[in-house]
């Protein structure tokens, strides 16, 4: 079994972390550039290879039609859901998809889980390079307010990346875990998490028991389409409007120029977290440079609507936990967008408490995921996480209404049973529609699945089928049914309303091999074999050299047995063994190498070429 890691699959950046056994502290793993942040950007190279992270981000400017960012916004959503996103984001959606969104990159189409799997695979490679070992299991974080379909899509992405997803952990809960380990906090904690594309608020109770610490989530709320991206969109729209007025230039919203401007504006936004003012100088087509001085005050006026929108879920989460803002013992800020002074001030005033910002807000979620990964790897011994389902689970009843069967903020795993019977004689099926959401009508809730419950033909009202709806520890729904009269369990084929079915996944797994780099262990075996072959060839050549006759018999015997051992190891797939036999052979040939080197020197002096030795 390989290593286990924690992964924060973010809208803007993704990170991978592990728990360092030496310090018992979680740590983020850097990529080739030395940075721990992997921009969540994927680009399809014209040669067909997939490029992820910083190199892909640079291609946003040069090859925008082959490059995608913020794909998390599309996870687990249907084509009809994303019409609004399309106005703001340069997603090119393949119109032929019906229940699944397909995004166009160059001449190919990919589903959002496939694109996310490329990011996960990149992080997996980072970790494998760092450890020098295979990584095959992961804890992946998701926004707490993600629904069933969004969670399932994330799990699918993990599977496509060759990772066994041991658990999906809610991002604010992960952050609380990281802080708890760091600060030894106790009492009631609010985690305010404003990321690139999503907002979550979670209220937790940290309880010390004789067995260890329990992190019990009391309530959670959020908005899966509210984040730093929205701030950038507001800034961009503002400047587009200015430029249209002063220079009569109408930016095509997703062209290279718009991407370039967006990059500049993000830099301005970051500067204004420290400085009181910052100046944008943007060269326009035609030669003029657009200049605009932003003050922090002006920026805050512009982005206040975004920050205000976060307070609606905050109020709801507190109400659900039966708490007032001043009941909280600690407040924690998570997510890059909480660096904005306006956010900090707003949160501080609301809770009347200085929020914690000690841990890097970009890294804290990945660090918490690493803590949970370690718990799952070694069993619960000092910490236990009890999370909740963010949305009520319901079933459609007569007249399109929804009967809630598992209320929001129920501790998961959670379940509910419903008893079904037939209304007419010999009815053989009952249609069941499962929904998630707080509204009263089915049409206003999120459709999770529809299925037809098979019923044995019998007089009306006689069949009694108990359907069990279970939300597992990942927040994902499972459905099973039992015939009460016969006791037989029915398996239920649940077709998700949005997302991939098993056949889709199967097919994508096959296709993913095309893009996948070889498995880490496989790569190691191939590399070791190649090196071994060249050592074996060199040794054979050296032994044939006349100078090799100066070797003692035991020396020659030692070399020959090492050669035989290495040849045998190369036949197998244990790369560590191959390396060991290579080392042994290298040691055994030390004297031989010396002999050859000396003779080479002599030959050189005698005017012979080295290659002739």
């Amino acid at each position, binding site marked *: 079994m390989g290593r286990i890691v924690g992964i924060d699959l973010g809208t803007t950046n993704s990170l991978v972390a592990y728990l360092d056994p030496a310090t018992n502290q979680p740590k983020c793993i850097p990529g080739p550039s030395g940075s721990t942040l992997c921009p969540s950007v994927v680009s399809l190279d014209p040669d067909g290879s997939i490029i992820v992270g910083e190199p892909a981000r640079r291609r946003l400017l040069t090859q925008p039609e082959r490059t995608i960012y913020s794909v998390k916004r599309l996870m687990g959503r249907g084509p009809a859901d994303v019409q609004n996103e399309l106005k703001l984001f340069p997603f090119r959606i393949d119109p032929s998809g019906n229940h699944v969104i397909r995004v166009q990159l160059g001449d190919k189409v990919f589903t959002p889980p496939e694109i996310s799997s490329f990011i996960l695979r990149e992080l997996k490679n980072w970790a494998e390079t760092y450890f020098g070992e295979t990584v095959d299991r992961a804890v992946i974080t998701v926004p707490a307010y993600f629904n069933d379909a969004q969670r399932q899509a994330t799990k699918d992405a993990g599977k496509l990346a060759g990772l066994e997803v*041991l*658990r999906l952990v809610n991002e604010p809960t992960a952050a609380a875990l990281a802080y708890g380990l760091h600060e030894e906090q106790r009492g009631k904690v609010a985690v305010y998490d404003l990321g690139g594309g999503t907002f979550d608020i979670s209220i937790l109770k940290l*309880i010390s*028991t004789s*067995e*260890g610490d*329990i992190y*019990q989530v009391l309530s959670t709320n959020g908005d899966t389409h509210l984040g730093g991206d929205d701030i950038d969109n507001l800034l961009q729209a503002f400047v587009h409007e200015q430029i249209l007025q002063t220079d009569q230039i109408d930016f095509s919203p997703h062209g290279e120029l718009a991407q370039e401007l967006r990059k500049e504006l993000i830099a301005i936004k970051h500067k204004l977290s420290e400085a009181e003012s910052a100046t944008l100088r943007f060269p326009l087509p035609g030669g003029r440079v657009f200049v605009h001085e932003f003050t922090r005050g002006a920026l805050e006026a512009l982005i206040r609507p975004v920050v205000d929108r976060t307070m609606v879920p905050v109020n709801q989460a507190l109400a659900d936990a039966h708490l007032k803002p001043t009941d909280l013992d600690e407040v924690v800020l998570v997510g890059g967008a909480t660096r904005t002074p306006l956010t900090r001030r707003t949160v501080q005033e609301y809770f009347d408490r200085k929020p914690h910002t000690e841990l890097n807000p970009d890294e804290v979620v990945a660090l918490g995921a690493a803590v949970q990964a370690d*718990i*799952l*790897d070694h*069993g*619960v011994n000092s910490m*236990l*996480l*009890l999370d909740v389902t963010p949305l009520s689970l319901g079933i459609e009843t007569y007249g399109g209404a929804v009967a809630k069967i598992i*209320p929001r903020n*129920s*501790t*998961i*795993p*959670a*379940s*509910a049973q419903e008893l079904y019977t037939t209304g007419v004689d010999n009815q053989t099926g009952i249609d069941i529609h499962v929904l998630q959401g707080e509204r009263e009508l089915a049409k206003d809730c999120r459709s999770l699945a529809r299925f037809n419950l098979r019923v044995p033909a019998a007089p009306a009202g006689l069949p009694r089928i108990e359907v069990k709806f*279970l*939300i*597992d*520890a990942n927040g994902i729904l499972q459905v099973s049914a039992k015939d009460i009269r016969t006791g037989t369990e029915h398996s239920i084929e649940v077709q998700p309303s949005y997302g991939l079915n098993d056949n889709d996944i199967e097919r994508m797994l096959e296709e993913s091999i095309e893009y996948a780099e070889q498995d880490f262990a496989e790569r190691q075996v191939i590399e070791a074999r190649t090196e071994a072959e060249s050592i074996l060839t060199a040794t054979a050549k050296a032994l044939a050299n006349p100078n090799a006759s100066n070797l003692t018999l035991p020396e020659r015997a030692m070399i020959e047995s090492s050669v035989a051992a290495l040849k045998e190891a190369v036949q197998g797939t244990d790369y560590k063994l191959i390396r060991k036999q290579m080392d042994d052979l290298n040691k055994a040939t030390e004297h031989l190498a010396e002999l050859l080197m000396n003779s080479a020197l002599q030959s050189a002096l005698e005017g012979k070429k080295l290659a002739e030795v």
Partner: protein
Amino acid sequence: MTSSSSTTNAPLVCWNCHERTVGTHFCSSCGKVLQVPEHSDYFAMFEIPRKLWIEMGALEQKFLQLSWKLHPDNFVKATPAEREISLKRSSELNDAYRTLRDPVARVEYLLAIEGARKEGQNKQQAPPELLEEVFELNESLDELREVKASGGDTVNLKHRLEAAEKNFAGKLTGVDGELQNAAREWDSALESGDSAKRQSIRNKLNELLNRRSYIRNLVTNVQKELL
């Protein structure tokens, strides 16, 4: 349906070692997590009698203690069968805690396992003593909808409805008080073992729950119209 006040589950056979076991959650001979017995209930899960007064602190302690042991996090490396049982057991533990923690859900659950919960026909019917007031309220609601539709002045009507809402909210508090009293009666009847008395209290609790749900719906409907 049994109406015994016994708190322990009958012995069952462990799925793993096939020994008869007396544990509630874990096998007394091999220590493996046990399947939920068919006849188990939420009170038995917490090893408490079927009383309606529950000490919340103790319930929470027990919940946390059992969560440590039953949570799927403990079973990541276990066999698929054990993982399945852990998922089932921990979901039932959470369901049980959610239900027993809520005083009204607790009464509903108790009546359900005692086979005494009957909502059906009573649900849509106004309790007789409320008939007149409900009739008046519905008239005001209709009137408000009409005035709203025609764009007329709704201020007076709203005042009248707000007063009615307050009145019914008061009645809800009254029902909750009656429920509490009936719950106390249930607990003492359970101690004395008076089965006839228990039967009559069950009926009373059932009737109170129906009245409560009826009034609560009324209040919610009025609140919706006043928004």
